[in-house]
């Protein structure tokens, strides 16, 4: 047993209102834990508290009761015996009459009533006693908000857990509830109140039961809340308007007995001017219709129908002028939420009372008079706005109604379709010379057709084809198609309104893609349709919209055809569309511009697997022809074509193939074919004129390989290796495998890959592409040889080799994580080769004379050979290798970083000259050249940034999470201390440059955590990047980091400390000539800075405003706008007024 004095102390502390909130909570917690751990029993507690529970001091009694209740609330899971519960609930039930201690009584009742059954619950009789006491004693509406909420919670709990007991109270209950709810305004309480009413209504389903007398009163209570409208928006964020509205909706629909009052109310509120009221009314109507049932709703049908009609037509907005090839609903009128809800309601009620609504719709005057509008106007632009609106409304109604069921579809089509077709036929016959189709009739036909089609698809094709509606369609479909085709052929030559064009093509598309069994279309009509559309593709490419729509229609027809099994249509589509478009690729006779041709090719191909196979065949043929033409014969025009073809292949075809199963063979075929071609050119003199073509070929190769499975990648790599090894000039002889020749002289800065022939470069680049894209576990033949090959070529400045080397390094497994050692080549071995392979000096006529002459990659970077270009090449190579290591998280990356840092620091060659005395004579003692150091600094950009050409997820690189953070946290401290220790301004600026690269690519969160230390480096970086126009992208990226810092709280503190220098820097960047985005962002940063504490920025105010005054005259509009905004922000930093 615990010390009674301790318990008393806790009780004292809780009851004493002068104690602080935390003290009271603490003592409550201690008492709870005492009881929970069985140190004291509930009985002891109650006995101990006797005085507090029964005293005549109201405040103390209230606190005491609340304490007991709160303790019980925390002990919901602790088992209690029935006697205890009985006496406790009895106590709280009595206390409900004590309005001064009410809070505790309510909490106590709730705590006991919500107990789980396994921990002991309140008995039925006790619960009834609570309910009786509640109804007798409580005047809910006179209480405060929190108490009201508790009251409602208690009531809700009683209704849910003890429905039979409270139901036995009969009329007392509805009476009490009506009284409690009446006049409630708090959203939290209202949600509960609506729920209580719903529960109450469901408790007494009998129409003549106890509820009968209170229905009117309940409805009046609910009615006053509809529509839900918050007069003080934003005050209550946790209860949304929608939650409340939904609760009310459920309360309304809780019993069909409310129908006679609710539906008229909702219909009446539809005429409200408040849009949210209309939306709510329609939503409630939909919901209530479903709940009240067809019979009860039948008598409201007429009123509902006319409300729907008005709701749709009054809520339309003018159509947007430009019609895109995107699909649109109806005539393109913008429908708001009201119209949307009205259409939902229409669908529900039509489904519910089918016959009733059908006759209403068919007899409707507005709908029958639409034919007057249709017949009196021809094309879209002739119809006045009002007519268009009505047409749209009727179209939508016809569509929705016909779609709901077969019966309605039959009735609608029987009534309207023949008449519409007659009008169409008449208009076509009358005006065969002009391009003229009755727009309105065509539009409504299309809506009906679309409804029929969607009905079939929606029913999973279970609807019989013999239904009347389809018979009607069948009778006129062929003639309709033929008429539309001849019409479209003329349309192309005339000026027709966009909307006219849209619906003509769209109708044709729907007819051609109508489910086969329900609407068989004759072969000739189908072919006519295809011919018309294809001829638009070939001839009318100047009419953008028509062309796009035709292509889209062809695509849809194509995917429809490839899904159905009608061999006749498949054949027609293939011969008319696919084959023709394939043959056009190799044929220059078509006037269709090449990019459009490719767009058409990829769209048609995407419509089905068989089509794609055909297309790919043609595309590959064209690609091979044009690249041979370009590489072997040097034809520039072919090169341009080849680039486009390859791009189309990479961007459109490969992703499609990747998503479709079973087409990998196509990719293999493509890759092997390219290698085959390359092989066949070996005897020719291959020229690489166009860098773009080589890049495009490489990208296509990479994507092809990357999209294949491992098995196929293996096959490709074997083929590639065969071609490579047959090209003897590239692979080194066995004897030179331990060292690599480099040339020391004759390399100029401008030369790139100088020592390659075009053929070598092509073979090498393509082979590197394959290596870049393979998956990690693919075995590369003769790995050592390949590694050395890349190592040699990267020193000659072949960047792709360096990338391939990095990718290889990245994908080798280390010894530890690779169980299958036998077949793999170890990462460690590879690193060994890369860093230890000695180069020999070809100046010495290839004689590997002494150890002194051997230098490795590291030494090359550090300038053992006084050749700038070679050094730069080695640094770039080293950076790519480092990136590979960094991504897979290998620790060797630290060595790479150290080498790069060493290049940056002055006297970077010192270590080298010390260790290699023999060479030092030939190495000049002076620092590395500027350009070399700069490339070492830029190597950090390469390490940190995401590359698009290699070492990313598409090309299966192994990427460890958070590698950027890791590099950031490793390198930044070193750089910071180097900057501090550096005494030459040039090397300091390079260190800043390297740091800036790391900062701008590091995740913002990492930068923010060190913002205070980094901000000065960042500012230096900004000023260094702003010197060279070539660095403008980097400048912009770094500036974005600064703006990120400015929007963060931690970052702002760092900025405040350096406010002056930040502002100096930003005002300078406001006039950065070379990039508008930099100026704009700099000004936005200044706007953000105006929010900083007044005292810190006020001194800079004049300086900023003066600069902004100039920026207002910026050549670019966007900058001027930002400048005005900035000026306003800074003007308000001062007390008032601006200096004019």
């Amino acid at each position: 047993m615990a010390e009674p004095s301790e318990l008393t102390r806790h009780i004292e502390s809780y009851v004493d209102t002068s104690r602080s909130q935390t003290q009271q909570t603490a003592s409550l917690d201690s008492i709870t834990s005492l009881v929970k751990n069985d140190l004291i029993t509930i009985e002891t507690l109650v006995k101990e508290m006797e005085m507090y529970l029964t005293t005549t001091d109201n405040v103390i009694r209230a606190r005491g009761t609340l304490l007991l209740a709160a303790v019980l609330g925390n002990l919901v899971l602790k088992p209690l015996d029935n006697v205890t519960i009985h006496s406790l609930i009895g106590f709280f039930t009595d206390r409900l009459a004590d309005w001064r201690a009410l809070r505790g009584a309510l909490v106590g009742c709730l705590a006991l009533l919500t107990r789980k059954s396994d921990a002991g619950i309140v008995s039925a009789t006790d619960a009834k006693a609570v309910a009786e006491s509640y109804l007798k004693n409580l005047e809910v509406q006179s209480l405060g908000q929190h108490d009201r909420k508790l009251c409602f919670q208690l009531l809700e709990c009683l209704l849910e857990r003890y429905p039979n007991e409270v139901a036995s109270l009969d009329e007392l209950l509805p009476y009490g509830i009506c009284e409690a709810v009446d006049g409630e305004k708090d959203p939290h309480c209202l949600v509960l109140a609506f729920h209580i009413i719903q529960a109450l209504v469901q408790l007494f389903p009998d129409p003549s039961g106890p509820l009968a007398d209170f229905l009117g009163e309940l409805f009046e209570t609910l009615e006053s809340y509809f529509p839900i409208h918050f007069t003080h928006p934003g005050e209550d964020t946790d209860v949304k308007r929608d939650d409340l509205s939904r609760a009310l909706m459920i309360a309304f629909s809780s019993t069909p007995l409310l129908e006679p009052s609710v539906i008229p109310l909702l219909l009446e509120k539809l005429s409200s001017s408040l849009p949210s009221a209309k939306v709510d009314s329609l939503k409630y109507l939909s919901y209530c219709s479903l709940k009240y049932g067809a019979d009860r709703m039948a008598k409201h049908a007429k009123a509902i129908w006319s409300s729907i009609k008005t709701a749709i037509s009054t809520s339309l907005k003018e159509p947007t002028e430009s019609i895109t090839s995107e699909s649109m609903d109806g005539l393109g009128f913008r429908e708001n939420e009201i119209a949307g809800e009205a259409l939902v309601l229409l669908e529900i009620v039509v489904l519910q009372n089918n016959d009733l609504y059908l006759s209403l719709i068919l007899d409707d005057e507005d709908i029958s008079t639409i034919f007057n509008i249709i017949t009196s106007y021809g094309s879209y632009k002739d119809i006045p706005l009002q007519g268009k609106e009505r047409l749209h409304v009727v179209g939508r109604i016809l569509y929705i109604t016909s779609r709901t069921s077969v019966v309605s579809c039959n009735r609608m089509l029987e009534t309207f379709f023949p008449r519409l077709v007659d009008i169409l036929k008449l208009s076509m016959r009358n005006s065969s010379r002009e391009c003229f189709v009755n727009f309105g009739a065509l539009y409504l036909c299309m809506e009906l057709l679309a409804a029929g089609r969607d009905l079939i698809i929606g029913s999973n094709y279970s609807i019989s084809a013999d239904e009347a509606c389809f018979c009607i369609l069948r009778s006129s479909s062929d003639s309709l198609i033929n008429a539309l085709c001849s019409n479209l052929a003329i349309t192309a030559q005339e000026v027709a309104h966009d909307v006219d064009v849209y619906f003509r093509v769209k109708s044709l598309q729907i007819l051609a893609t109508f489910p086969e069994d329900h609407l068989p279309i004759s072969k000739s009509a189908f072919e006519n349709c295809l011919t018309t559309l294809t001829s638009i593709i070939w001839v009318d490419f100047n009419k953008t919209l028509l062309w796009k729509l035709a292509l889209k229609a062809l695509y849809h027809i194509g995917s429809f055809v490839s899904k159905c099994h009608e061999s006749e249509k498949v054949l027609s589509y293939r011969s008319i569309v696919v084959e023709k478009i394939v043959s056009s690729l190799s044929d220059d006779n078509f006037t269709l511009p090449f990019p459009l041709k490719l767009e058409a090719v990829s769209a048609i191909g995407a419509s089905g697997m068989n089509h794609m196979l055909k297309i790919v065949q043609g595309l590959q043929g064209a690609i091979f022809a044009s690249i041979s033409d370009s590489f072997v014969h040097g034809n520039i025009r072919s090169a341009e074509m080849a680039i486009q073809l390859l791009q189309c292949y990479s961007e459109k075809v490969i992703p499609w193939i990747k998503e479709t199963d079973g087409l990998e063979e196509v990719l293999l075929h493509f890759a092997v074919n390219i290698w085959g071609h390359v092989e066949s050119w070996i005897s020719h003199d291959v020229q690489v004129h166009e860098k773009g073509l080589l890049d495009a070929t490489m990208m296509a190769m990479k994507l092809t390989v990357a999209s294949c499975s491992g098995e196929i990648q293996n096959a490709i790599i074997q083929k590639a290796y065969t071609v490579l090894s047959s090209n003897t000039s590239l692979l080194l002889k066995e004897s030179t495998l331990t060292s690599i020749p480099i040339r020391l002289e004759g390399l100029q800065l401008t030369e790139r890959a100088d020592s390659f022939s075009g053929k070598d470069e092509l073979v090498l680049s393509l082979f590197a592409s394959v290596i870049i894209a393979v998956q990690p576990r693919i075995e590369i033949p003769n790995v050592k040889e390949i590694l050395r090959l890349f190592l040699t070529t990267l020193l000659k400045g072949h960047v792709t080799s360096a990338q391939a080397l990095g990718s290889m390094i990245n994908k080798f497994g280390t010894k530890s994580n690779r169980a299958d050692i036998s077949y793999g080549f170890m990462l460690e071995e590879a690193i060994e080769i890369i860093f230890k392979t000695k180069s020999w000096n070809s100046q010495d006529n290839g004689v590997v004379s002494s150890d002194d002459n051997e230098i490795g990659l590291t030494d090359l970077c550090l300038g053992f050979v006084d050749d700038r270009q070679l050094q730069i090449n080695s640094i770039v190579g080293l950076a790519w290798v480092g990136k590979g290591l960094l991504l897979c998280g290998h620790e060797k990356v630290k060595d790479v970083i150290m080498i790069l840092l060493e290049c940056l620091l002055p006297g970077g060659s010192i270590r080298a000259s010390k260790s290699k005395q023999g060479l030092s004579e030939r190495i000049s003692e002076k620092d590395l050249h500027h350009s070399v150091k700069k490339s070492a600094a830029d190597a950090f950009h390469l390490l940190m940034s995401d590359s698009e050409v290699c070492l990313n997820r598409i090309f299966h690189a192994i990427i460890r999470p958070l590698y950027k953070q890791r590099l950031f946290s490793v390198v930044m401290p070193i750089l910071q201390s180097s900057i501090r220790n550096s005494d030459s301004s040039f090397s300091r600026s390079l260190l800043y440059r390297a740091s800036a690269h790391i900062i701008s690519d590091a995740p913002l969160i990492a930068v923010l955590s060190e913002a205070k230390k980094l901000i000065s480096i960042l500012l230096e970086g900004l000023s260094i990047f702003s010197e060279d126009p070539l660095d403008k992208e980097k400048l912009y990226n770094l500036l974005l980091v600064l703006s990120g810092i400015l929007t963060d709280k931690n970052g702002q503190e760092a900025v405040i400390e350096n406010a002056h220098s930040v502002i100096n820097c930003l005002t300078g960047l406001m006039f950065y000539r070379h990039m508008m985005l930099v100026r704009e962002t700099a000004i936005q940063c200044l706007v953000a800075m105006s929010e900083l504490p007044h005292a810190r920025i006020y001194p800079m105010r004049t300086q900023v405003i003066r600069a902004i005054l100039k920026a207002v005259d910026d050549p670019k509009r966007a900058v001027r706008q930002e400048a005005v905004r900035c000026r306003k922000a800074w003007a308000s930093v001062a007390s008032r007024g601006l200096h004019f």
Partner: protein
Amino acid sequence: MVSGLINANPVIYEKKERRVRGAPSDADEYAVEPIDEQEIFDILLNDTEKICIFKYPEHPYSLEELKVITEDAIEVNDHRSYVRVTFTPTVEHCSMATIIGLCLRVKLIRSLPSRYKVDIRVAPGSHATEAAVNKQLNDKERVAAALENPSLLDMVDECLAPTYG
């Protein structure tokens, strides 16, 4: 100030569909985009924020909805640094004309480069004391004096409140 509204029931016009400016060409970083009529109109009505910003002093409608300013009534020459805005008060004897004019002037001065000369006029025949209003609006001294009057400046600032003044 007069009590009650000068024009209690003004005619409200539908806002015209704004022509959309083509996306700025990224092709030429150094190309100059001169200040044009539409930009001035946007400054005055601030299309970018999509709310009616420049409040007519006595109605919560924007000046555009009341057709006080239209794009046609703006004349600008970036080369010669000159802009002229002609506005039309809703009624002939509108005493708010000078306030509107002052607001327009302040807004333009705050948004345009300092090299600009701003000329604000009442449309010919649209106001009873046209000449006087024009004179008052374009008198440098009087404008400066007006802006030194705190209550007047407050009123101007309130009219321009939600904009970037």
